Structure formats: structure tokens, C-alpha cells
């Protein structure tokens, strides 16, 4: 009824391999983009920006990055928190070393640095697989956090050991620091998320993505048909770390403003983003969005229900929140192991025929 491909004919391969082959999807995508860019900035306030929108945008970038590695290339990684820290510290060093550099460039450069570091930690993936690789990437997590704690050069020898984002402007509007307006930080992150999603989608529908998926599904067959496993895996690590680094830089510079590495980018961050990817759906860019939204919104929703509606004490709700989130994750994974993206796909299948299923 609402959703159908009948009558939506393609006359070229180009039209068939576009991101949204179905016209309805394409228009919905334009509408969502228009709302995100043209409507939300005018109605946004500090609460919405800091509690929901900024974390969603930033985590979605990280989830896209991790999804490329885990969902598309099949290389399990637990080092996401460490790579986010790498992005944050690289961004900080660029911001302080080159005060005149545009913030946009800073964030991109932070991504590039993280991509290189990610490739280094991806080297063992040629030899080890699965859980063993996860342990190797766990080393990245602990090593990077340790490094940023112990080497004062990374935090510019500040007494507190923290890094603080200096004020930077973009087109005359502050986007970092305490005075930055919510709409400006929101738009800045939104631009990065849109670009990340586009790039991820373009890569995964082309030959690079097919190499990754071939490695994921059967690495021996992939090698026989001419995929160089080292290059494919390292490129996945590089692209993945690039996005994760960007999200780390944004998380530090625009969202938190000040970061203590052991707190902001610890192992829990790695797991949080891995949960987003698994719950959202492995091997789906849309799933990264859905997973990030789920993990960001769930605590907020529980708090609203518990504190505001039921009038429970805040600490009780905070404790219950952990229990409920954990239980929901388990239930969810049993009910739908392929994640929210699969649920969405099924819903679309149903909607295609609704209300006349025969």
C-alpha cells in the first residue's frame, strides 16, 4: 500500500545500483535530510542537543565505522573506545598546534591519524580470526588509553591530565567551547554524519565493499577469486578507524569539551558501540543509525518513564536502567538476531502488501 516497487522500472544499471533504488525510499530520504538540515536547527534547544541529538549523531558515525569492520568485513573489534580516544587526542593536538586550522580539517585529520593507527592494530588480523582477533584489538583499547594517560605530551603537560577543547569558530559561529550554540554543534556533527553515511554506502555497494564481504563470508574462496586478504582487511580497518576517529574527535571537541581519557573512552565505550552495531544490524548502514538511536534513546526513555511518570527516586531508576537495558538487549537478540535493520526490512515486506496480503 504505502511501499511498493511495482511500476518502478529501471532502464539502466546505474539506476539499479543507486543507494535507494525504490522511488518511495528515495523521497523519504530527501524528506528526512530536509528536516534534519532545515527544520531541526530552528527548534533545537540545549537539552535536546546534549541529551539526545549530539550523542546520537556522534555514536552513529562510530557505529557506521565499526559496522564496516565487523558487519561488512567480519573482523571483530573491541578497540573502538581506544580508536575514539586516538581521534580525540589527535584532534586536540591539531587544534592546539595549529590554532588557525579550520575545525573541519582538524576533524578530518584526526580521522586520518586514527586510520593509520587502526591499520597498525589491524595487522594481526591476517593471522588470527574471531575471538582471538577481538583480544588483539582489546590490546589496542588498553594500550591507547594507557598511552594517553602516561605520556604528558599528548595532553600538553596540563596539570589535571585532561584535555580541554579550545574555542574554535566556523563561519564566525563558535562550535566548540561552552558558548557554542546548540544548533551550530548539531549542524557540524550532522554534516559529518551525512558524509560518513554516504561514503560508507558508496564503498559498500561497490567493488571495495564486495571484497570486504567476500572476506567475511569465506576468506579462502575470496583469495581464490583474486582478493588480496591483507589489503582488503587493512582497508577495512583503515576506513573503519577513520570514521571512529572522526566520532572520537567530535565526541571530545563538540560534545564533552573536556576529556579524561580513562573515563570517556574506556572499554565500556567499545562495548556500547559494539552493542549498537549488533542491535542495529550487522552489515547495514541503516542498522548503524537504528542501533545508535536505540542505545541513546533507551536510557532517556527509561528515565522519563521512571522519574517523571512514576515518580521513583533518580538513583533507583539509574540502577534499574542498567538491568532493563541489559535484559532488553538479551531479549532483543534472541527475538531478532539480525537486528533492527532486519525488523525494518520485514516491516517493509508486510507494508508492501498491506492491507490485502493475498
Amino acid at each position, binding site marked *: 500500500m504505502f511501499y511498493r516497487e511495482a511500476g518502478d522500472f529501471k532502464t539502466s*544499471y546505474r539506476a539499479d545500483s543507486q543507494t535507494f533504488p525504490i522511488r518511495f525510499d528515495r523521497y523519504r530520504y530527501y524528506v528526512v535530510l530536509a528536516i534534519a538540515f532545515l527544520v531541526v536547527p530552528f527548534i533545537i534547544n540545549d537539552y535536546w542537543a546534549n541529551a539526545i541529538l549530539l550523542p546520537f549523531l556522534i555514536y552513529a558515525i562510530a557505529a557506521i565505522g565499526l559496522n564496516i569492520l565487523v558487519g561488512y568485513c567480519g573482523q571483530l573489534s573491541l578497540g573502538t573506545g581506544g580508536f575514539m580516544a586516538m581521534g580525540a587526542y589527535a584532534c586536540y593536538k591539531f587544534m592546539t598546534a595549529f590554532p588557525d586550522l579550520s575545525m573541519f580539517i582538524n576533524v578530518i585529520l584526526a580521522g586520518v591519524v586514527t586510520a593509520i593507527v587502526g591499520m597498525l592494530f589491524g595487522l594481526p588480523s591476517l593471522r588470527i580470526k574471531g575471538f582471538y582477533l577481538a583480544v588483539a584489538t582489546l590490546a589496542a583499547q588498553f594500550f591507547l588509553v594507557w598511552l594517553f594517560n602516561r605520556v604528558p605530551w599528548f595532553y600538553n603537560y596540563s596539570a589535571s591530565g585532561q584535555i580541554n577543547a579550545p574555542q574554535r569558530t566556523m563561519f564566525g559561529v563558535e562550535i566548540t567551547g561552552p558558548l557554542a550554540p546548540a544548533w551550530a554543534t548539531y549542524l557540524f556533527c550532522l554534516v559529518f554524519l551525512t558524509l560518513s553515511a554516504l561514503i560508507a554506502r558508496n564503498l559498500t555497494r561497490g567493488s*571495495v565493499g564486495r*571484497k570486504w564481504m*567476500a572476506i567475511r563470508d569465506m576468506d579462502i574462496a575470496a*583469495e*581464490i*577469486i583474486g582478493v588480496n586478504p591483507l589489503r582488503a582487511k587493512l582497508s577495512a580497518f583503515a576506513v573503519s578507524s577513520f570514521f571512529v576517529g572522526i566520532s572520537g574527535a567530535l565526541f571530545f571537541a563538540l560534545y564533552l569539551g573536556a576529556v579524561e581519557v580513562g573515563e570517556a573512552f574506556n572499554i565500556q565505550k567499545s562495548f556500547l558501540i559494539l552493542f549498537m552495531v549488533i542491535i542495529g544490524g550487522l552489515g547495514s548502514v541503516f542498522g548503524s543509525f537504528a542501533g545508535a538511536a536505540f542505545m541513546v534513546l533507551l536510557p532517556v526513555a527509561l528515565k522519563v518513564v521512571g522519574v517523571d511518570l512514576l515518580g521513583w527516586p533518580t538513583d533507583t531508576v539509574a540502577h534499574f536502567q542498567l538491568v532493563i537495558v541489559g535484559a532488553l538487549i538479551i531479549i532483543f537478540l534472541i527475538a531478532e538476531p539480525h537486528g533492527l535493520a532486519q525488523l525494518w526490512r520485514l516491516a517493509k515486506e508486510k507494508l508492501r502488501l498491506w492491507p490485502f496480503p493475498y
Partner: protein
Amino acid sequence: MLDASEGFTTEDGRRIGGVVMEMKNITLRFGGVVAIQNISFDIREGEIRAIIGPNGAGKSSMLNVISGFYVPQEGEVWFEGRQRPKVKPYEVARQGIARTFQNIALFEGMSVLDNVMTGRLTHMKTGILSQSFWLGRAEAEETANREVAERIIDFLEIQHIRKTPVSRLPYGLKKRVELARALAAEPRLLLLDEPMAGMNVEEKEDMSRFILDVNDEFGTTIALIEHDMGVVMDLSDRVVVMDYGRKIGDGTPDEVRNNQDVIDAYLGVAHD
């Protein structure tokens, strides 16, 4: 016997060219087990060459040597007039050798079309950066290779399932998709490891027709392993027979059929 450089004409009038691949005194060992012992044979341009033999004769090992997956301890592999150095399996694919597997080795998480497109990977050169933004070159390359892939899909009559995930397909179709993926690479030598294993008569007939068509239409040189004797004798131009890692026969199907060693290997020898 045949002259090394000259070709010959088959009974049905097809022209078989010069030697494409030549195996010279190949010996392959796994620890103490000798899988292949001092075997030499050649594969000629445009022919269908079968490797047969009882279980454990070393046929699959031989195919793995040709496809570069195993490196023999002794002997030389010559491909298109040059001795092949020790290369990685993915470099063999770039030389123009494609293969299918005995147990299907498709990418289960991808659609049929994507699987066939992976066969084109050796022909696709654009880098990550231009693909990131799906600009000019990357898109032109994608479309051009899609056309080739679609031709193969048409040829093997799997248009109706091109968007279906491979994991949902029945066995016989998966075998056909795997053949499509190998063909998409436009190989100069196509290796088929038991293309008809586990199929019923009808599927075998289909597959035989496809193999003959591929050979006919694209002129692809094919080397195949098969257990079904009827199929092998009908399809192939020349047959190598292996037993216990040795070559016990080599020639046209008729020659091989009347070879006493081959008969002994398949039917057993009377002990009196």
C-alpha cells in the same frame, strides 16, 4: 601421440589449439603422504580436459596445484608459455585462472548478483577514494562490469534470482551461480571441481549443457574433475586418469576406456 605445438581437430569438428598449461613432473607431498607422484600432462587451448580417478587418487590435489592453492615440492607449472613462479592464490586469479569448488564456496551473505560481481574484482581497478564519492570513473567501471556480469547471468539462465541472497537457493542453482562467478572473471582457464556432484539426472544434463555451451560460446579452456563416467566420456576431449597419485592413462575418452590399467583401477584386478 600429439605434437606439443600443433593443435588437432576433434570428432565434432572443433579446433583445439596449442598448449595453454603444462604440468611437468609434479610431485606433491603432505608430510609422508605422497598425494601426487611425478605427473605430467598438458591442457590445450579450447579443449575440455577431464581428470578422473577413484576416490583418493589425488584429483582435487591436482586441481589445487593448477589453481596455485598448493605448491608442489617438485616439478614445474607452465602457463601460457612461461613457468609460473611460486605465487599467492590471489595472484593466480589475476593470471586468468578461475575455479569452482567441490563443496560450494559462494559468499552466502550476498545476493547472486553481488556474487557474480565478485568474479569481476580482478578487472576492477578504481581505488577507495574515487569509490567513496561514487564519482565518474568508479561508477563507469561499476556499470561496465555490471554489463559483463549480466551477460553471464543471462547465459546461465539465472536472471530471475539475481537479487536473491545465495543462502536461500537450492543446491543445483548454487552450483550454477558458482559457475557464473568463475565465468564472470573471463578466465583463460576454467577449473571445475566436481561440477555435478550431488545433482540429479536433470540437473546434471543442465550443467553438462552449460559446460559445453561455455566452451563453445566463449572458447574457454576447461579442466574438470568428475565422478560420473558417462558425463566425463561425453563431455571431454581428453582425459587424464589418476590412481594413488600416479597417472595411469591419458588420451581421448575412447583410448582411456580401452586402457587396461584404467580398467584394472576401476574394476579391480583378478587375483588367481
